[in-house]
């Protein structure tokens, strides 16, 4: 039996096409995925992300614990509300998951981890937390709605009282505020401005309906995937997993090695840096007509690679992909699609953000 979010009935009533996503019955679209995609790039859309796992860490040992758990440096979080994107790694440097950590108070940090990796993440976090003074508590009673797009914040502000909405609208990117059980973060997974809002499950449907009445378009997981891929954001389980390091996944910027923290996986990453990182995650734009898809083989001058995430980009009107390629000059690149070699160009992601195609991509 699939799990459902507090917004499930609203999705079904809106005519959503529902699919299984990691054991959750979730909307893939409400009609046209492409129209939903454009709504987020040009106006405002909302996503039910209540399936994602919120984990609260409380206790004096929370900061020291995160300093060990995360490849990025939690010392970067000095102002309450500030967020940090990071991977947590195995000892061998493989990526267990990527997550966002929010600093709420010196004895209170909030993590948001992927739904598909919930069980192993909680298991790992609890196991590693043993030696530190802190409690680990999941927050399944909270729903989460991502409101994204150039007009998202102004439309979402009407969910909040005057004082909170003013604070929310003045949030800098990657910062959050709390108001009781409501939690408003200026974060997202689309390459657009917006909020990710955690709120009590019993008021989630009313909030969803208020947003819809304000002209925020319901968007499914389909548009979420094309938006994040255009924005050059990795999807755990596709673009990285336990068999690759962040250095091979376009995530070197999230690894802090210029300190002396003994974080889990550090030795493996330092060894890989000395020996040479064998693979990298690159962007591809297909020159020929067709659609790039996960697992298609990529032929480069430096050897064989593979598409990790591919799609048709509604903003570029071309097929785009993230691909894991051998390190070195790729030269002329082709992707094998149904037995044919189609020409592709290597680019540096992101492909599109803030309503427009990024420079140098087309």
């Amino acid at each position, binding site marked *: 039996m699939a799990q459902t979010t507090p917004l499930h009935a609203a999705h079904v009533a809106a005519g959503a096409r529902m699919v299984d996503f990691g054991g959750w019955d979730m909307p*893939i679209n409400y009609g046209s*995925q*492409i129209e939903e995609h454009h709504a987020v790039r040009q106006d405002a859309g909302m996503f039910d992300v209540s399936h994602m796992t919120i984990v609260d860490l409380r206790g004096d040992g929370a900061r020291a614990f995160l300093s060990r758990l995360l490849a990025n440096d939690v010392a970067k979080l000095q102002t309450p509300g500030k967020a940090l994107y990071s991977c947590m790694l195995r000892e061998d440097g493989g990526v267990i998951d990527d997550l966002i950590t929010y600093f709420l108070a010196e004895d209170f940090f909030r993590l948001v981890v992927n739904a598909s990796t919930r069980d192993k993440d909680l298991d790992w976090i609890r196991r590693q937390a043993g030696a530190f003074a802190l409690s680990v508590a999941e927050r399944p009673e909270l729903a989460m709605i991502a409101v994204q797009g150039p007009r998202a914040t102004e439309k979402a502000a009407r969910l909040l009282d005057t004082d909170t909405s003013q604070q929310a609208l003045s949030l800098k990117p990657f910062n959050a505020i709390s108001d009781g059980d409501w939690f408003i973060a200026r974060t997202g997974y689309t390459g657009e401005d917006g909020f990710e809002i955690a709120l009590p499950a019993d008021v989630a449907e009313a909030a969803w309906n208020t947003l819809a009445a304000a002209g925020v378009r319901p968007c499914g997981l*389909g548009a979420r995937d*094309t938006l994040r891929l255009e924005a050059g954001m990795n999807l755990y389980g596709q673009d990285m997993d336990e068999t690759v390091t962040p250095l091979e996944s376009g995530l070197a910027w999230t690894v802090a090695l210029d300190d002396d923290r003994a974080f889990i996986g550090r030795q493996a990453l330092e060894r890989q840096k000395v020996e040479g990182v064998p693979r990298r995650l690159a962007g591809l734009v297909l020159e020929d*007509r067709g659609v790039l*898809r996960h697992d298609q083989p990529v032929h480069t001058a430096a050897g064989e690679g593979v598409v990790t995430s591919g799609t*048709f980009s509604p903003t570029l009107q071309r*097929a785009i992909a993230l691909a894991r390629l051998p390190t070195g000059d790729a030269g002329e690149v082709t992707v094998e699609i*149904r037995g044919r070699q189609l020409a592709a160009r290597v680019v540096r992601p992101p492909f599109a953000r803030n309503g427009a195609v990024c420079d140098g991509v087309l």
Partner: protein
Amino acid sequence: MSNVPENLRYTESHEWIDNENNQAIRIGITDHAQAQLGDLVFVELPNPGDEFDQGDACAVVESVKAASDIYAPLAGEVVAINEDLEGSPELVNSDPYGAGWLFAIKPADPADVDDLLDAETYAQQQED
């Protein structure tokens, strides 16, 4: 409920067949199929002159979500393709039985059409 025109024939794999001109039988995908696939972004059609046996994979339609093979409902030779789909694959979504047709074939044996599903049977299959 998806639209299933009375005058067409159908396959279990959701192709429709228009037998109005039995020298150039138009083939497309049903309203049900386009709704299942979602927004189409790319259509790969056969070349005029290609010959297929019944059941051969002969075209590919790709939505944002996935690629799907189209199977030849009849043995025969491709005599026309819908060139508008190269620039506007979304016609398959907006008008699956009209402007969104895929290709036309000249059947090896026009009587093969009689073996395909009629509208009532195909519609019944959707409900099962």
